[in-house]
């Protein structure tokens, strides 16, 4: 059974960049990796495909296509299998239902989420409705990670996600800090992780390389393999692949959360 993970965190905090860099780093190590973009804006796999946009499951469904595996599963960097679910135009229809339908279709027509070593579900920042938790509810996710910086709002979002996870009785397998350059950031996130019953897995520095590579359509692993930040992603990837202890998180109350960001 493959490792099936989802990375949660506040909108815009860096989930998709982290997911694609971890995917690339695992592929470098020889693992078979599948990445499923569950965000209607379908930007999860673009840096694994040299900037190419692939048709999404929802695009094909809208056009009334008879969807087969080869129409939706694409090989990216070092054979990483990339799938984008996509969704309706913003403000129309029901994107959550789209995820439910796409996940069951994918299960039916493709082995990409079974015959592999790692599946990463890249979910949007705001879990707006039941549909976006479909991968978890359908038992397709067995490990969850939370990505946050040391600022108050991202931590607040991370804490809320922990509330959600404990409600779903889903374990948290680690906290990842994506730095935004806040003072004392590593300590704050590390303390947060400890207090919710988890641990800090990686401290990813803020590095403009992420953005320059992204602009050209690549992960830093592919475009700047020797960089310091690539080393950080590699280490994170290794610890995701080798550890598997998780615990149902215990969210903090708001007063404690505010105190934390001041240490």
């Amino acid at each position, binding site marked *: 059974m493959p490792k099936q993970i989802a990375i949660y965190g506040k909108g815009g905090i860096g989930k998709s960049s982290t997911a694609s860099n971890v995917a690339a780093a695992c592929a470098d190590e020889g693992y078979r990796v599948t990445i499923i973009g569950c965000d209607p804006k379908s930007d999860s796999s673009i840096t694994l495909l040299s900037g190419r946009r692939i048709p999404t499951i929802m695009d094909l469904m809208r056009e*009334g296509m008879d969807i*087969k595996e080869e129409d939706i599963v694409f090989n990216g960097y070092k054979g990483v299998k990339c799938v984008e679910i996509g969704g309706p135009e913003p403000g129309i229809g029901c994107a959550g239902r789209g995820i439910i339908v796409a996940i069951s279709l994918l299960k039916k027509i493709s082995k990409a989420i079974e015959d592999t070593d790692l599946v990463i579900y890249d979910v949007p920042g705001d879990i707006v409705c*039941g549909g976006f938790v479909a991968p978890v509810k359908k038992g397709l996710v067995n490990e969850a990670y939370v990505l946050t910086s040391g600022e108050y709002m991202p931590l607040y979002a991370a804490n809320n996600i922990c509330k959600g996870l404990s409600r779903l009785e889903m374990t948290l397998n680690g906290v990842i800090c994506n730095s935004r350059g806040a003072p004392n950031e590593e300590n704050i996130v590390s303390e947060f992780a400890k207090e919710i019953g988890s641990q800090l897995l990686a401290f990813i520095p803020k590095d403009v390389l992420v953005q320059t590579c992204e602009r050209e359509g690549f992960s830093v692993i592919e475009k700047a393999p020797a960089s310091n930040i690539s080393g950080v992603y590699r280490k994170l990837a290794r610890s995701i692949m080798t550890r598997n202890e998780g615990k149902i998180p215990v969210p903090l109350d708001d007063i404690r959360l505010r105190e934390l960001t001041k240490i």
Partner: protein
Amino acid sequence: MPVKKEKEPLIMHPRPSSIVAALYTLRDLDTDVVILHGPPGCSFKHARLLEEDGMRVVTTSLDESGFVFGGHDALVEVLEKVIERFNPKRIGIVGTCASMIIGEELHEAVTEVQPDVPVIEVEVHAGYRDNTKGVIMALESALACGIISEAEFERQKALLKEATMVEKRHGAASKEYLEPSRGDLKYKVAERLLELIKQGKKGLNILNAKKETAFMFADINLAVAEVAEKLGKSSNIINMANLDENVGLPKNRRNAREILDDLQKKDMEIHHIIGGLDEYPVAGNNASQIIGEKYPDFDFAVITGVPHALPMDNIKNMELFSITNGPRQVVPLKEMGHKHVVVEIDLHPKTLGVNHIVESEFGATLREMAKNA
């Protein structure tokens, strides 16, 4: 490159719902209580009718706030209440459009409550083109629970595929819009039928009905046999029926036996069994083959139930009397070449909760008119 699916033609008239189809299938599987996870009015009429058949149907009554906040707690509560109040041996949970769109997981409630009887979960909504989808989904769950065998599942699936084709060819899915019709006047059709029998014409008397509807359709075939007997012409009539008691889900077998018993008591002999009560989509082919081999030169045929499932090849030169319960089936049957089409309005509700043949209007008309014949 992905290939475009052929666009299904538009059909505008409302058609049977997959949710309701799942409910009837659960009934056939001898489920004691079914919980509809959705709005209180969903499938109301059928839910009510099914209670006549001894299966309880309850609802989680999702309201506006349930749509917004989810209905998990409501489902858990109803499931617990159902177990406590009805002590069921087999439970069903059926989805609806509302609960499926918001991503409710029926299984979560089952995991939480841990009932010690089997629970058949059907994640169905009413948005499928063919209602047979609801049947297949219910059977898939029943298979997963070990309630039916793989062989029975495959058998049913093949039949349902055929049923869908029958509807596409000449049934409810055959046209963009089908005008409902009351069909021909019963006494006029009965008059003509009696005339043919009296003249000593040779006739086929075929029952090809869907499941419990046979309780009433069989009454028509019985009436035909009775009046032929009364007129001393019974040797001119050949009776066929899809009343094989050895195939299908338990309820279908039971019903076939009950109808056969009733017919036997009235001395009606069935010359050919053409299939079981769930085999109406294919039994017509069996009948057609028998007709081709043995009765190609018969003068008329009375076909009750699902007359449009009988291929026209071997009966096209006969004068056809068909009796259906679908007002939208009249136009397609006429177009196929059935000369007389009679509708038994509201037949289905009268065949729920019964275990004997139920009197039909056309049967009664025929018997009454034969008195003066």
